[in-house]
């Protein structure tokens, strides 16, 4: 089997690696880099358990090849918290019980992360629509929707605080 060299940036770290051309991104992240927070649920890009961010955009890593991230930046669930401080969305999912078995959780958080980047204060309808590429079999989605709403509030508050700090300075 031919081996291809790729250079990518994963969770802020530059990575050089050798992969088979057929290797899926999800397997590269899980097996080669040990980032097991990304999961495989359906193999057909329906369930979103494998969601990661490539150049800031939420993608299904089970239907993307590792070679496709050559020269690009990947963020996984392991990469969204800063210095052990949970990201507001991670806090929100915990506080609002946005998970039961935990298998879909990293994908849910990353899709929500991407949604909130583009829409700071989404309506319930917008959240439901945007999360429809991520399946949850445990919660009935209600607590996940609450978590995203709450996460959005926390993020807005954080932003306000940052802006105030800048003014004070």
């Amino acid at each position, binding site marked *: 089997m031919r081996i291809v060299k790729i250079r990518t940036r994963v969770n802020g770290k530059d990575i050089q690696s050798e992969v088979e051309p057929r290797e899926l991104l999800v397997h590269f992240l899980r097996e080669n880099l040990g980032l097991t927070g990304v999961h495989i*649920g359906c*193999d*057909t890009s*329906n*369930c979103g358990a494998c969601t990661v961010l490539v150049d800031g955009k939420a993608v299904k890593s089970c239907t993307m090849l590792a070679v496709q991230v050559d020269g690009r930046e990947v963020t996984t669930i392991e990469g969204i918290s800063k210095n052990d401080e949970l990201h507001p969305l991670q806090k929100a999912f915990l506080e609002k019980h946005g998970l039961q*078995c935990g*298998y879909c959780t990293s994908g849910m958080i990353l899709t929500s992360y991407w949604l909130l980047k583009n829409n700071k204060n989404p309506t319930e309808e917008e959240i439901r629509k945007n999360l*429809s590429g991520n399946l949850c*079999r*445990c919660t009935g989605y209600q607590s996940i929707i609450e978590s995203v709403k709450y996460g959005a509030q926390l993020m807005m508050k954080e932003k306000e605080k940052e802006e105030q700090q800048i003014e004070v300075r």
Partner: protein
Amino acid sequence: MPTINWNDRELEYDSSRFVKGTGHFVDDIKIQGMLFMTVLRSPYARARIISLKGGISSKDLGAKIASVGEGASEGEASSVEPIFASGFVNYVGQPVAAVFAEDRYKSEDLLDSVEVDYEPLKPVVTIDEALSSPPIHKGMKSNILSEAVKGQDFSDPSSPIVLEDTLENNRISTNPIEPRGLVASFEGGVLNVWASTQAVHSVKNGLAETLGLSKDKVRVMQADTGGAFGSKGGIYPEYAIASFASMKYGKPVKWIETRREHLTSTNPGRGVRGKMKIFSEKNGKITGMKGEIMVDAGAYGSGSGGFSVPFIESMMTGAYAIEKAFVTGKALLTNKVPQGPYRGAGRPEASFFIERMLDLLADEMKMDPADVRLLNMSDKPFNSPLGMKIDAARPFFETAVRELEYRREAKLAKGVGLSFFVLVPGTYTGESARMIVKDGKIGVWLGGNSHGQGHETFIRKLINEELDVSKELVTVYRGDTSVTKDGEGAWGSRSAILIGAAIVAICKKLRTEVEKEFGSYSSESLLSRDHDEYVFDEKPFSLTSFGANLATVEIGRFGNVRVKKCNAYYDVGRALNREMVLGQIHGGMAQGIGQTLHEGLFYSEDGQLITSSISDAGVPLAEDLPNFGVKIAENRSSLPHGAKGLGEAPTIGVPTALIRAVEKASGKRLRKTPVMPEDLIE
């Protein structure tokens, strides 16, 4: 197992890890030298194997699968599933051979090295074909796997109203988002297994029996388990194959299911048809019920097909005081994957049959469905002629109708449905728990294993109440058969009841021990000494509870149903944790909507699975579902901690309320789930 480098802290139930992506699911296990297993599966629903070369197959492992897990029942010898197909294949997806390599890509490549020649045979696909065709298994007289009768037969009374109908719940895949999987490692004469499971002891017992090992030479440990809903309660052929291979090759073996394999080869639920006949007085009072049920058991008796028949039959008068009832039933063999339990496991089917008849009676009488139901309920506890003990139903239902604001809703909207049910939890044979007090901390292990329900939350609460030990000092660990001697599993709405009771029993024992030694109880005294207590409460008791649902729908031009409201009023006993209770109910309601409007496994005439992706199988999306309205009644049970069953309530109550709402909105009598848009347009 020394080769797995998860430390003690990583073996506990801790949902905070999942938001960080640091859970420990079975596919996350990496061991030096581990082989990855891929299974070669039958492409035919029924065929003779002419020749087979390559891989591990029935010539290496000729065993049949053991009967363990929820609802497992011994079938006739000729209907028990072999680990590997032998001579014949009997469903699409049946394991034929297995191959092994150092990673999953190479392992899949190796599938090409196995050569199989088949002679396809005409499969038996439907219940009707099973009744009219010669037996699919040699050595059997017919395709009847099992038969059961409940109640006393009676001659049809000359009732003024006699209604008959045939009703059906199609098969559904359980579809937890994490598929099945395990890692087996045979070391020092002990088979160590890590599994995604609801029941470590069922897996242990099943592997020991299947592979002829003594039970103390098999240790099964639970990895974080990404949902199960009934399908991860027992063992499957792949578990025995991976274990066998780890013994044969002297290396750890990992097997992780693909979604397609899940849909073809993991036991699905439902797949039951009921023919109902009710006899009623002129005023709408039902005096008798006759039923005949057919369970599509699939190709082998290894699932729960045999168990389903008498269990469904026993609940077929629902929560109603019907004096005469008689039900006959058969589980039938077809060339499809064996049927198994799916959240509710017989309860939703029984309720669907009787609730659909109550609605039919209401229409016949031109009465409100709530009033027909009230008329047929008792003010007092009632022992049904089918053997079910139920509490006084009417007071609860009257409150439910008010709490759900049903009468107002029925005036405001056209598509409104109401349902009522009694939940019978699966408490047989009790459950185990062990508590170890050491170094000022408490460790807890359970026989039945949480897979998302958050057992750790209520256990910490109960220990805090009983022993005044703060929650931070209590750690609840995932299942491990080397720590608990025995156990059943987490299924059948039983955990809060049975694990709660076991934990309270241990706490009382510990309290007594401390009082004996110190004269009086204090948590400081408890934690100052080492203790080790194990209980297995073998007294099976049943605690039924009531629930009601309301659903409101609108139907679009193309038959697409929009669920506007989906509300519940359930008696959950004492809610040990309100958030967890709501979470269970919301999740179950989503599955109830799924069964009614979206989900189903469908097979072609030649037994090929048509719905072979998770999206085809119809798992509901966030945008398919409404915000749920849930109210709970907390009528404490007779147990010290007051809990009742809960988990399956919504999968029983939602389909019956929802299909009625769709029936009212469409004006068409509806007899089966799922209801498809094409059923609703001209």
